């Protein structure tokens, strides 16, 4: 492990118990992701893409193996500590945006900041900056239902970056969008990677989306198909 690595996964296994059966998703999975990488994870349905993303995002824990983030083991953290780790380090972008329908765009973006010690005025300033960054400063007071899919995803991006995390995890971020809007979103992610140094890990089915990444990993049946790419 070097300090260049943001993530180091060693011999990670993930198994689920379903009734009397144990289903293995991964076994002995090794992976390193460098700081500032934009990684696309591709693969067929059931290959383990989302499970891997969940492990990297600290919303799930491995059955075996080690996961280190910036030199810190996260695979053994308690639920509470993992929640704090997520709040401090990770921004999430979901396929279906997952905005709170009863909050306007600005309030949605503000949500992660409730987990910080920022004052109300500091939070407002950060929200304005994030919305400005995604080009939705004029839609701050709009409810999610008043925004298009692309706009909702941009609000979700603003929510993901507002607390300035090192890592952005994107689960099929363009899966619900048309091509033109998808390209806009992907360009925005590329900008966040190139200009702001965010490490981005994106799960996608879409080869066009993967082209925006600087590294692509292919997963199939819980294994990286191209080992050179994983190393």
């Amino acid at each position: 492990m070097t300090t260049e690595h943001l993530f180091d996964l060693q011999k990670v296994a993930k198994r689920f118990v379903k009734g009397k059966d144990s289903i293995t998703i991964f076994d002995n999975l090794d992976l390193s992701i460098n700081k500032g990488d934009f990684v696309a994870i591709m693969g067929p349905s059931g290959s383990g893409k989302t499970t891997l993303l969940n492990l990297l995002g600290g919303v799930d824990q491995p059955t075996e193996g080690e996961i280190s983030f910036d030199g810190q083991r996260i695979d053994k953290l308690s639920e509470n500590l993992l929640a704090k780790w997520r709040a401090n380090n990770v921004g999430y972008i979901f396929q279906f945006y997952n905005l709170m329908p009863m909050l306007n765009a600005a309030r949605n973006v503000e949500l992660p900041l409730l987990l910080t010690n920022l004052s109300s005025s500091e939070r407002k300033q950060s929200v304005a900056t994030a919305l400005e960054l995604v080009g939705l400063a004029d839609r701050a007071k709009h409810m999610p239902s008043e925004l298009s899919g692309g706009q909702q995803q941009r609000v979700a991006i603003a929510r993901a970056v507002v607390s300035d995390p090192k890592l952005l995890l994107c689960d099929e971020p363009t899966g619900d969008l048309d091509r033109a809007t998808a390209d806009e979103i992907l360009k925005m992610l590329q900008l966040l990677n190139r200009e702001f140094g965010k490490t981005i890990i994106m799960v996608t089915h879409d080869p066009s989306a993967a082209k925006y990444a600087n590294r692509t990993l292919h997963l199939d049946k819980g294994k990286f198909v191209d080992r050179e790419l994983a190393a």
Partner: protein
Amino acid sequence: MNDFYLIYKNLTRKKLRLTLTVFSIFIAFTIFGAVSALKGSLDSGIEMSADNRLVTVNKINFTVSIPYAYVNKIRAMEGVKDVTHANWFGGYYQEPAVQIVSMAVDPTTYFDVYNELVVPDEQMQRWQSNQTGMLVGARLAKVYGWKVGDRVPISSNIFSQKTGGQTWDFTVDGIFDAEDAKVDTGYMVFHYKYFRETNSYGGDNVGWLVLTTTSSDLNEQVAKSIDEAFANSSAETETSTEKAFNKAFLEQIGNIGLIIFGVVFMAFFTILVVVGNTMVLAIRERTNEIAVLKTLGFTSARIFKMVLIESLLLAFIGGLLGLGAAKLIVAAMSDQLARFLPNIAVGTDVIIQALLYMALLGLITGIAPAINALRLNIVTAFSRG
């Protein structure tokens, strides 16, 4: 924005559901407030009974009179301090429906026995020397706007005058009151002599006797002595403490406590089911959103707290509105009810009890969805969505 804002937005996101749920809680607490006020009013007679006051009635039942001669016989008994007597007049004012609690009493001893009642000396002297005078309780006087010096005709639905007619003319000689607001002053008293001399029947009898003992320790002994003294006579007696007498009187209507418990229990059980179901549904609908909050870094404990507060808020909004409505209804009707239900009010004890019930309702209906939210696994929640 803070957690409370999130709770508020979640609570108000479905206006119709919120309105209907709050309304059901509102109704339950209105019933609770009003019925508890009724019980409080009925119980105040028992509560305010003096420890050393006894009531002697005819053993057949309290509507059958007893000889006037018993008064002096009882007065001479050991342990007896003061004795007075009263006759139920069955009075009404102008219309038979407008009943007035009215009694013919002994003006020289009545206020010795009921020493919690206060009458200005000058008014007392005027009343004692005026056979057609009456003393009116402060609350009754307030209801009809009677003042000292007013001439008031009171009719009886039981008795008639020797000269014919059922109406007696009285002069308001004074107004009695009590320092403790719980003491009933919603009635009037007048001279027994006036009643006996003008009444067409009844003879030299009194309705019941009220006496005080020199010490409440002697109550049982004095009661036994009185009843033994008149055993095997034409008018046997039954003596009990004023508290027991009032309680037995109320129980003629039925077990008020049980009736109230039944009504309140049914109302609360119904809203418990309604609100509990609403909360479970509301939280289940938000499974995905709770998973998102957890993903963002909100801890399970924080989300548990938010759901529980939401449920408590719901209970308190509906409950406080209901209690407020009960207070307004009871206050608006207290004057009309004053003749039958003295001092009816939603008191502090009822308010405290209601607040406890609101908290309990909020906790019971909120605990299951809060635990569900606490245990919600992010991966499972998203895979369901």
